[in-house]
């Protein structure tokens, strides 16, 4: 089954990365097709594995502050900053819908 336009749009919103062209969409289709081979394997009664170290206890250290105070170094790599803040453009403006988007991003 082909991936619907709604899902493609949804993915672009989630990933904040675009398919760019039909080749990108093709790539996704092929990836899904490839992944479908997983269904050939019988996994009845098998628990999903999160980590190969699942049989071990996680190391917890004491809740003491051991490092920090490196504001200056951390800010150094940011493009836009004001005092000790990272500056972002105005938020809460959702990306336009797929139909409108072609023209929108071309302005970037």
């Amino acid at each position, binding site marked *: 089954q082909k991936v619907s336009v709604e899902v493609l749009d949804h*993915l672009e919103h989630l*990933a904040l990365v675009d398919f760019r062209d039909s080749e990108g969409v093709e*790539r996704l289709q092929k990836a899904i097709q490839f*992944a479908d081979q*997983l269904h050939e394997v019988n996994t009845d009664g098998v628990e999903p594995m999160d980590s190969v170290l699942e049989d071990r206890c996680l190391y917890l250290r004491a809740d003491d502050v051991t490092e920090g105070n490196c504001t200056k170094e951390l800010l150094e790599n940011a493009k836009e900053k004001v005092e000790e803040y990272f500056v972002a*453009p105005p938020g809460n403006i959702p990306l336009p819908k797929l139909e409108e988007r072609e023209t929108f991003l071309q302005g970037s």
Partner: protein
Amino acid sequence: QVSAALKEGHVSPTELCQQCLSLIKSTKFINAYITVAEETALKQAEASEERYRRGQPLGVLDGIPIAVKDNFNTAGIETTCASNMLRGYISPYNATVVQKLLDQGAVLLGKTNLDEFAMGSGSTDGVFGPVRNPWSYSRQYKEKTVPKFHSEDKDSNWVITGGSSGGSAAAVSSFTCFAALGSDTGGSTRNPAAHCGVVGLKPTYGLISRHGLIPLVNSMDVPGILTRCVDDTAVVLGSLAGHDPKDSTTIQDSFKPFELPNLTDVSKLSIGIPKEYHAPGLSSEILHLWSKAADLFEKAGAKVVEVSLPHTPYSIVCYHVLCAAEVASNMARFDGLEYGHCSDMNKSTESMYAATRREGFNDVVRGRILSGNYFLLKQNYEKYFTKAQKVRRLIANDFVKVFRSGVDVLLTPTTLSDAAPYVEFIKEDNRTRSAQDDVLTQAANMAGLPAINVPTTLSERGLPVGLQFIGRSFQEQQLLTVAKWFEKQVQFPVIQLEEVKRHDDGVFQDQKSASFS
């Protein structure tokens, strides 16, 4: 050997450093390095020299030039992951493994080239261009290659290094450093090691800290070690392994560095030959080599048995899903705000993020992010992601069963064939290539097991071919001991590089053939 030479004063750390730096310059066409940290390297070399003068070297690694793959953070040195997203990013800190090497006095020459964000199996998809396999310029390869067009640029049939740690492998292979760090998620250290004729170790997951290694797949990534001989790998491993409070996925067991014994009696060893590793596409040359190696062990008295890891053919599909999913998550941090590339688009936060990411990532990365997001959608989560996690357990269990049956070490090929010419390699896209090339190396990452590539012989085309040993979890000592025995038996030839201006320095000639341990 070089370490002893440094100790006895036959060569000084600064001389060594300068020779490596000038060799890097004269082998620039290999494109193994993204950043060469000349000034800091020389300073480190001078500090090392001072320590030797006082008779107080920090250890075997003091003064030894090393290179680090460009996805490890190195304080004050640009770290790019071969991506536009991190161009100009100067790390504010050292990755734990980098810090450990520096604490031992190693001299960091520079950052090596890779596939963008370590995604790929050719070291061809980074923004700084592909890495060329130094063996393309060896007498051994040239003798066996008939140039297609005499008037053609003689450069046209150079071969790839494999990936994604191709730069590190090429750097070690071309003598510009004595050891290099790579990373291994699906075979990214062992694959280029095989193609470049060097030793490449993927340690057990949890043995070496990943703090500072820009993550690809958190549950499978490990820092990898590339050197010219197995003894050197053991030395580097000794200085890197151990618990790191900054990486919660490192185990707490104490690690004792070891020296490898010279094994003479292999009769107590049981070598497993997994039949599924006779994968489609495996060249007859390598199949034959694999079989010869098995015979070698048998003749020497070891017990060689055929074993089965039935879920091996699914490890690539499983990896494909889990990798994409983890990548989708790991790449989310690149939004242009705190570091890295930031787009000029500033109409809204979301549009700035979207534009930054479309400008910063190449097709491969974007493709994986999108697939990953697809597999993680609510309607697909069970079907793909959880399913893949279950298949992962089956793959890991296959290994457990085999090791429980008495097998000590598995012997398999590392790659399907010798290195392909670049012009051939790029005919297929990245995902197809990775799916083909990772099939022999990926399962070890799934199960978190240690695995090592040992360069074995030259192919009919004059290019290196290696074989892989997979060991039990945290049994690096046993794995490396077997690898060292095998290395001694096969006597892999030294590369005869032609186009490099050689220094007719007696000491350099000694270093050329070997190791620092």
